């Protein structure tokens, strides 16, 4: 086999490897929330952390997978027909607002459940109108384990 031919084969192999890597990166799956383990925390504690020291809470919880336990205040559907579960905190009208990836059936109001999801952070409400903000959890699943 000539040197030229060998070089050609090597180049083709490198290109094929590069194309495969690019393809895999491009189709990289989203974080597998359902099977992942999250940080265990209560809704009231999580909310208080964001209210009392937002910088610290952001480092500790934002974009992390959390397993949040709390009392169900409300179950509803958003405009995309995804289920929303509001978990109570110690502040009236303030919730850990969970948008579910997979319908959790119909959790009973005031029952204590755990939702696993990615924490996107806290959005303040409006002090003038007495509307407190929420801490948000996205891509959530009901934890049955």
């Amino acid at each position: 086999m000539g040197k030229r031919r060998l070089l050609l084969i090597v180049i083709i192999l490198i290109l094929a490897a590069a194309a495969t890597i690019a393809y895999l990166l491009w189709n990289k799956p989203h974080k597998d929330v359902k099977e992942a383990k999250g940080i265990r925390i209560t809704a009231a504690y999580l909310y208080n952390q964001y209210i009392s020291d937002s910088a610290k809470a952001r480092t500790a919880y934002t974009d992390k997978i959390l397993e949040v336990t709390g009392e169900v205040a409300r179950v509803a559907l958003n405009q995309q027909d995804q289920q929303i579960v509001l978990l109570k905190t110690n502040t009236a009208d303030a919730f850990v607002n969970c948008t579910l990836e997979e319908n959790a059936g119909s959790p009973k109001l005031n029952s204590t459940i755990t939702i696993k999801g990615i924490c996107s952070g806290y959005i303040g409400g409006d002090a003038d109108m007495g509307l407190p903000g929420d801490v948000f959890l996205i891509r959530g699943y009901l934890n049955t384990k």
Partner: protein
Amino acid sequence: MKKAFVICSLLMFAVTGASAQLFYTKNGSVSFFSSTTMEDIKANNNQVISILNTRTGEMQFSLLNNAFHFKKALMEEHFNEDYIESAKYPKSSFKGSISNLGQVDLSKDGVYTVSVTGNLTIHGVTKAVTVPGKLTVKGGTISASAIFKVSPKDYNITIPAAVRNNIAKEIEITVTCSYEKKS
């Protein structure tokens, strides 16, 4: 004395009446869409807090940038890390008011065309914008919708040359919110 009581009750009614003009949602929706010949990119955020004061016409919207969900994980990663820089600028917001509130009768069912003027903040840059939208009143519930375009360049969002042809110069933003009355 009787007169004073009537005045007092009227005043109390006026105060409680005014506070009943506030509507809000914490699960409004904002999506954006970029279309080029190379590819279409869409992302949704269903955790939008919006407040509407029907007495003054004031409207506000705020969302967390990292809550936008894309079909492809890689796009979501690039959006958060390279373009919108979510860690540095976690929120996008709009604060403004309906400029033609006089033409809206919220006590009557209907679809009202409104013009909303205010400040839009994205990526730490605030710009004055006027957005056309619709307020829909149906059986006592109010919902709002709007479609408008923003240019990433206006908000100092730089798109690397390698993907410049894949991302539209103007991104279409769609807003839909169903409000509930603040008790």
